[in-house]
């Protein structure tokens, strides 16, 4: 018991020491490379604080990005779940659509960004659509596979207990797909975020990605680093929340689920 407790404390210390080490390396790098190329952490944090509170240069961009992300992600979640359910339950359409969906998941979707620009213009709509397009595929794939993997016996047991379809969904289907649903939602969020920021970086007039590229042109490294910090904090927070939920529900083997049908031997 005591040994285990000691181990836990050591692991905690290790987890805390990694970011400290990164900041130390950052400071060291800024001394070696000069402030012009890599500003020190302190300098970056003061620019970041200025952007978030007094000066507020970050706030409007942050708002634009969050709105785009929220709209894109929400629509990806809703539509992804619906399509995933349909493909999971209907065998024929799953077998027809699966290679298509898996391949779209693998192609670099930035290549298709100009199409979104043509369709939705330079404003926020194209980023929402692009974030949606990035986020929907992992959600479809994970929902589909989760539903497909429910054992028929479970449903049959439900029928023999004379449960109605709604009850079967609530008591059998939903609990058994919940863990991989969480993983799908997390991957979907990560990709939707990627899509939104990428779209802003490529062509837009507002948002964190846009200001990042503008600062890149002006060689304003402090701004670039503080935007990166903001993006990282958003991503890490959301991922942390999903991770905690996944761990509570029992993690699924991420790679295996994303990659679809692979009859692995039981480990």
């Amino acid at each position: 018991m005591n040994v285990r407790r000691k181990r836990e404390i050591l692991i905690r210390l290790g987890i805390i020491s990694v970011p400290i080490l990164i900041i130390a390396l950052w400071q060291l790098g800024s001394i070696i490379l000069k402030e012009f190329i890599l500003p020190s952490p302190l300098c970056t944090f003061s620019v970041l604080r200025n952007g978030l509170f007094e000066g507020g240069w970050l706030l409007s961009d942050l708002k634009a990005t969050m709105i785009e992300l929220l709209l894109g992600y929400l629509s990806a979640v809703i539509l992804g779940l619906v399509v995933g359910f349909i493909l999971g339950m209907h065998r024929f359409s799953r077998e027809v659509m699966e290679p298509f969906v898996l391949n779209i998941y693998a192609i670099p979707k930035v290549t298709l960004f100009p199409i979104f620009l043509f369709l939705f213009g330079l404003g926020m709509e194209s980023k929402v659509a692009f974030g949606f397009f990035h986020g929907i595929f992992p959600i479809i794939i994970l929902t589909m596979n989760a539903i497909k993997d429910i054992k028929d016996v479970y449903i049959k047991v439900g029928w023999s207990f004379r449960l109605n379809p709604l009850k079967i969904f609530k008591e059998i289907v939903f609990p058994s797909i919940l863990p991989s649903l969480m993983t799908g939602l997390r991957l979907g969020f990560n990709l939707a975020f990627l899509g939104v920021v990428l779209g802003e970086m490529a062509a837009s007039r507002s948002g964190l990605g846009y200001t990042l590229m503008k600062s890149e042109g002006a060689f304003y490294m402090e701004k670039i680093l503080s935007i990166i910090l903001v993006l990282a904090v958003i991503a890490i927070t959301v991922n942390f929340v999903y991770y905690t939920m996944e761990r509570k529900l029992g993690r699924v083997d991420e790679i295996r689920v994303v990659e679809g049908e692979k009859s692995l031997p039981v480990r």
Partner: protein
Amino acid sequence: MDWIYPKVGRSLRLSSFEIFIWIYFPAATPYIFTGLKLGFIYSLIGVIASEFIISTRGLGHLISFSYSAFDTENMYASMLLIVLIAVLINGSLVRIETWLYGRRAK
């Protein structure tokens, strides 16, 4: 991985190196390959995306350049090329992967 396998190795008096070569490595190959495949896909995405945003050459640059020049035909052509490349490479990697997993299951 089943712990019985390295134990069998030990009973056969294999050295640690031999156990690694004959037991751990073959057992891990499919998983390693899945990792390699995902790594490939993500690096392709990263390369094309950064070419798209800032670069002076490359397929991603070609797309954003033809977009800004309103050269729509060239733009769709290079898109199609990238999609084909990605699908082809991904398809062959998936083939190899399925074969590896299948071999392991036997």
